């Protein structure tokens, strides 16, 4: 029996095939990573329960946005660039103002006894005609107010930014800061805000 000689496969076209695949993946690839403002929606209230949460007027920071994208904060017309500072002052209440939220002492790890505005709530209401860009801007400024406060505190106490307190070993530190500045943004049940 004549033994057939094993012929080598011609690999010359391998590069072409690889090129073809490469170009396919090059074209179909999208490098963008999705980023955005993360929020948690409140669960739908059940029909049966009709509880009214009692919040003192001084503890609520009302932000209204009308359909002309104008901002009404605590009953006053405001430009959005002032929102961050105003919100920060509301959250901290540095001079124990009687119009700003009540403060109480709580025990926090790493910090000891701290006076915080535990019961404050930022209430955000928008009209159906508000533009999405404006809504995001407002959400962004409110988030920025909290992030700046948390960062400041974290820098002062731990020497690192709040955003850099990552991993399990920093979990307690994160929790402590979140306890001092809890993010409380509440969106009202939809209704039409006039204007």
């Amino acid at each position, binding site marked *: 029996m004549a033994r057939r000689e094993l012929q080598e496969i011609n690999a010359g076209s391998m*590069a072409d095939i690889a090129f073809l*695949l490469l170009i396919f993946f090059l074209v179909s690839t999208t490098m963008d990573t999705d980023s955005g403002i993360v929020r948690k929606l409140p669960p739908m209230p059940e029909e049966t329960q009709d509880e009214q949460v009692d919040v003192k007027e001084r503890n609520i920071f009302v932000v209204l946005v009308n359909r002309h994208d104008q901002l009404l904060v605590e009953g006053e017309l405001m430009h*959005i660039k002032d929102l961050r500072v105003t919100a920060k002052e509301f959250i901290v209440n540095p001079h124990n103002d009687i119009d700003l939220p009540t403060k109480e002492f709580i025990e926090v790890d790493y910090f000891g006894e701290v006076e915080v505005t535990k019961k404050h709530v930022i209430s955000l209401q928008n009209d159906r*005609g508000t533009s999405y*860009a404006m809504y*995001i*801007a407002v959400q962004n400024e409110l988030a920025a107010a909290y992030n700046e406060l948390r960062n400041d505190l974290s820098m002062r106490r731990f020497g690192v930014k709040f955003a850099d307190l990552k991993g399990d070993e920093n979990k307690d530190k994160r929790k402590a800061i979140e306890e001092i500045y809890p993010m409380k943004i509440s969106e009202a049940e939809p209704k039409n805000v006039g204007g």
Partner: protein
Amino acid sequence: MSKFKKGEKKTVTAITTASLPDIIFMLLFFFMVTTVMREVELKVDYNPATANQTKKLEDKALVSYIYIGEPLNKKIFGTVPRIQLNDSFAEPEEIRDFVASRREGLKEVDRPKMTISLKIDREVEMGVVTDVKQELRKASALKINYSTHEGDPIDAIGRY
């Protein structure tokens, strides 16, 4: 005259291309690993709003997308902002089924971690967004993400 042409013929040595396939394969594998296929074909205009207090979405597998914007084909579908689920336009009521089917596709342990990423055009009015949010609440898909691109939102509002 022939001082420089004397002697041996110059031969141009060809560069060996034997390693070319390897290089191409390397690039190929890089792109294969990093590639993310586009989830859907966009049927609505989507220009993201701007924000700078953003977080990155970690696990793509747990994210479902809802697009809202004016239809691309305005001659046929008009200019009223529409919701796009998967590859077609949808009404707000259909979101509940959409969420349910997406949740079904996840592992049991991952279901509470499911995130809905809202990709909403910046010019859309909040009315339709509010409707979508109400539907999401009814479907108890509470983790949401307002997809944005990086930048100062106050500057951006002035520019639109």
